[in-house]
């Protein structure tokens, strides 16, 4: 139930918490997920959240990914990977006690660096790429901090029965878990994970464009700073807030005749409160954004109210009201949607 509730909320927040002000539609940087821990930050900056993210588990795999990204001096579009010290094996030496005793070490171990590249459909032959760093300040969705999930796992998985004669190797893997045990520990996590678990992270990144796809032609087109925070309040409320600043360098846009887009600053911040009880969700959001380009300032305000009800397995009906104000002109809209999300994992 909880797992099904999160996706519609995340979709709503991704679509509406931030105020889009950038004049360059080719950029995907105005609609990041407001959820503090989404997919790779580099792919978010590129507006390519749907792309598959590779998480290399060793330095060797990381180098392979880097070679796939750059071949013969040219950038390959459609690559996305994210690495963390833990994922690269550095965490292999840290015990659970080591991690919890030193919060800084835990935070560092969960920091990620991501890289991504996409083709820019507006400029054939060009490749946009991004590199970003994200630091999770805290993350209650991490099972290592979820005592209930750990206790439940320890009920399901106990130390193996010792053999009559001692094993002859230093490390001897015991027989793997049964399918029932694997399913049971999956349920441990599902039932003990709060839908409104608190999270916070900060991030920074660069996006760059290469008009001919060559690495040597890469030019930085924007600098991004970002934060996201989520607080669970009791069992029914969730508060989310995000902020973002983007500095966009001067650049050329469009096919010939090329238009020079001057440099600009964009800032946005938003907050949202969600209330859920059983199959019913109410959510209110407020967001404000500012954009400055060549001494010309524009302001935008957006207010959104959403009511959702789960009408079937993974199927949600929602009513939505939006009010947006750009400088001195305001507009409002509303409507209803039917959303359906399902698990695409093949049944075993």
């Amino acid at each position: 139930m909880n797992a099904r509730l999160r996706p519609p909320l995340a979709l709503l927040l991704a679509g509406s918490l931030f105020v889009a002000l950038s004049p360059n539609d080719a950029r995907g940087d105005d609609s990041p997920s407001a959820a503090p821990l989404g997919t790779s930050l580099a792919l978010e900056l590129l507006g390519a959240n749907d792309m598959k993210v590779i998480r290399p588990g060793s330095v060797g795999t990381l180098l392979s990914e880097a070679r796939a990204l750059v071949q013969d001096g040219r950038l390959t579009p459609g690559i996305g990977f994210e690495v963390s010290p833990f994922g690269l094996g550095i965490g292999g030496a840290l015990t659970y006690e080591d991690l919890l005793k030193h919060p800084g070490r835990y935070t560092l171990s969960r920091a990620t660096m991501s890289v991504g590249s996409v083709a820019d459909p507006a400029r054939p032959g060009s490749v946009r790429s991004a590199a970003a760093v994200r630091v999770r300040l805290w993350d209650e969705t991490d099972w290592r901090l979820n005592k209930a999930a750990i206790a439940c796992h320890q009920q399901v998985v106990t130390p193996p029965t010792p053999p009559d004669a001692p094993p002859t190797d230093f490390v001897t893997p015991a027989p793997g878990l049964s399918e029932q045990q694997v399913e049971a520990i999956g349920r441990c996590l599902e039932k003990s994970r709060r839908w409104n678990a608190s999270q916070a992270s900060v991030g920074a990144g660069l996006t760059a464009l290469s008009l001919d796809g060559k690495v040597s032609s890469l030019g930085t087109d924007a600098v991004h700073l970002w934060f996201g925070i989520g607080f669970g309040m009791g069992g029914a409320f969730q508060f989310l807030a995000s902020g973002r600043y983007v500095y966009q360098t001067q650049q050329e846009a469009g096919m010939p005749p090329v238009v020079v887009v001057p440099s600009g600053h964009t800032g946005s911040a938003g907050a949202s409160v969600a209330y859920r009880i059983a199959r019913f969700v109410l959510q209110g959001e407020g967001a404000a954004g500012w954009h400055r380009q060549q001494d010309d300032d524009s302001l935008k305000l957006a207010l959104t109210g959403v009511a959702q009800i789960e009408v079937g397995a993974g199927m949600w009906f929602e009513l939505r009201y939006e009010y947006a104000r750009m400088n001195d002109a305001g507009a409002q809209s509303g409507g209803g949607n039917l959303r359906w999300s399902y698990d695409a994992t093949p049944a075993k």
Partner: protein
Amino acid sequence: MDIDISAEKAPLKAQLRVGGGFPITWVLYDYASSGGSWTRSHVGSGQGSAWVDIPTADAAALKDHVLTWAVAAVDFDEDALEVDVVVTIKGSDPASPGAERKGRWSVSKSQPRAFISVRIVK
């Protein structure tokens, strides 16, 4: 899997450290060989990197014994992680770092259990 504890004096204690940030539970057994067969005794059980006392008055009497930790790690992640495993046996001398044996273990959600064994050679 051999470990040399000749520099350690009783009373002895042992510790298992498993990396990867996995909470672990374990049970420690002592295997002794007699007449071609093994007898197994329960030494202790615990969680994490806790030390456990080894009940012997003479470290030399443990020669050829095998200490085996039956370990279960808590792992909810799909991807396997190669982690460090370190067994330390330490005597009464606080200046001694203790005898150590290191290895690697691939832990995954479906394979979170293992036996970690050291044979005491001196």
